């Protein structure tokens, strides 16, 4: 059982490490790294499901009977390239956030947001008082 399920458990461990980084770390780039870890763990899960004992790579050749399952390979191949495209989008958002807020730490961004919110609220209040 240990050998048979080892791959799955490692996948879960990697996935949970990724999840932990996303939840517990405030730095946006670190969060993206966590997402990448999570993503890779899913890739590893699919690929290790596709493996058949005694099989070889799914490229047809003479005198080979057993092949590994090609379908998960196809799904993951496209997923990797899509993953880099979406990661690039996330990184470009981070760059814009850095330009606007001057920081990529979640707490600083939250503080600045709260301040501007309070300011706009107080301005509104004063306006309403004037009108009244």
């Amino acid at each position, binding site marked *: 059982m240990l050998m048979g399920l080892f791959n799955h458990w490692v996948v*879960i461990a990697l996935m949970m490490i990724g999840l*932990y980084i996303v939840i517990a770390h405030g730095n946006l780039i670190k969060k993206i*790294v966590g997402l990448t870890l999570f993503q*890779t763990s899913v890739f590893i899960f699919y*690929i290790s499901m596709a493996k058949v004992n005694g099989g070889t790579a799914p490229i*047809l050749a003479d005198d080979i009977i057993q092949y*590994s399952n090609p379908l998960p390979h196809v799904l993951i191949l496209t997923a990797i390239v*899509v993953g880099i495209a979406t990661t690039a989008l996330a990184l470009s958002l981070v760059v814009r956030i*850095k330009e606007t807020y001057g920081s990529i730490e979640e707490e600083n961004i939250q503080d600045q947001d709260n301040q501007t919110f309070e300011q706009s609220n107080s301005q509104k209040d004063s306006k309403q008082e004037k009108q009244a």
Partner: protein
Amino acid sequence: MINIVILTLLVVIAIAIIRMKDLFAVVMLLGIYGLLSASFFVAMDAVDVAFTEAAVGAGISTLLMLVVISMTGRREITTRHKPFSALFVVAITGFLLIYGTLDMPYFGSADAPIHGHVAPRYINDSMQEIGIPNIVTSVLASYRAFDTFGEVVVIFTAGIGVLALLSVVRRPEDPEQIAVINDSMHERHLVIRIIAKILIPFILLFALYVQFHGDFGPGGGFQAGVIFAAAIILYTMLFGLSTARRVINQSLIRLVAATGVLLYGSVGLATLLSGGNFFDYNVLANDPIAGQHLGIALIELGVGCTVAVVIIIIFFNFAARREMQLNNKKQHQDKKNKESSSC
């Protein structure tokens, strides 16, 4: 046996990533992680996936992260909010998932449900139906062509998104300034420049080989596109962004990206118009096998164009943004210096 060693190393690296404060070190470890997971894919017989992961996970993603870190700063300020509640959530989820794996088929067993359904058909009949030895390519480009079409559109959309977020209006630069920058870079990077001049044609040729050899071995449009883009990125890094922009026309490559997606879609439309199903290439030529070959070649070409150009666009925009920030900083400093000297 190999898989156990590699997976254990992966977990060690992941734990080290949690503990690192230095984002640069984190990215370096992520590069090692990508290389290691690609070796794992080779050990698991997924050669095509390893090919892609090698180019993408270890190369391009490390590269993009580094460019971003050089813009946003290297240190992580330690504010771990509520690590205990996060740990609690993670532990509960992990426990439930492990409980779920107890019913999973064991690793490598040939009678697992995943090996039922469609997989035997792909393995046994794809040679007669499609006529190319690489089953992954025939599933990717023919059996599941509609799915892949969606993926290509997602990549294209991501490219547009990056363009919308980061694109900078560039003033036309005077050639003299470019020449000065070029000369200073030439002094500093002389050795790599010469090596890169030898390597870049080779890389481009290799990308074309991967593109057209994808039917017979590991390879195909996705991998070829990434390798092609990597060569251009190497050129851009060593010869400067302005030079690269003059070599590669920006509006032209945007057109190429769109053309790739359009080519893919129009192959589907052509099959519809000639009386088949969407992406049923049998009708493209008199002989079904010849039709399949034609359809797969066209589709791989479309995928290759789109992926290569989107990655080039992404990199160019990041690099241009970085250059703009540096210039702004310099101007700001110059202004300050002037003010202080005038006082």
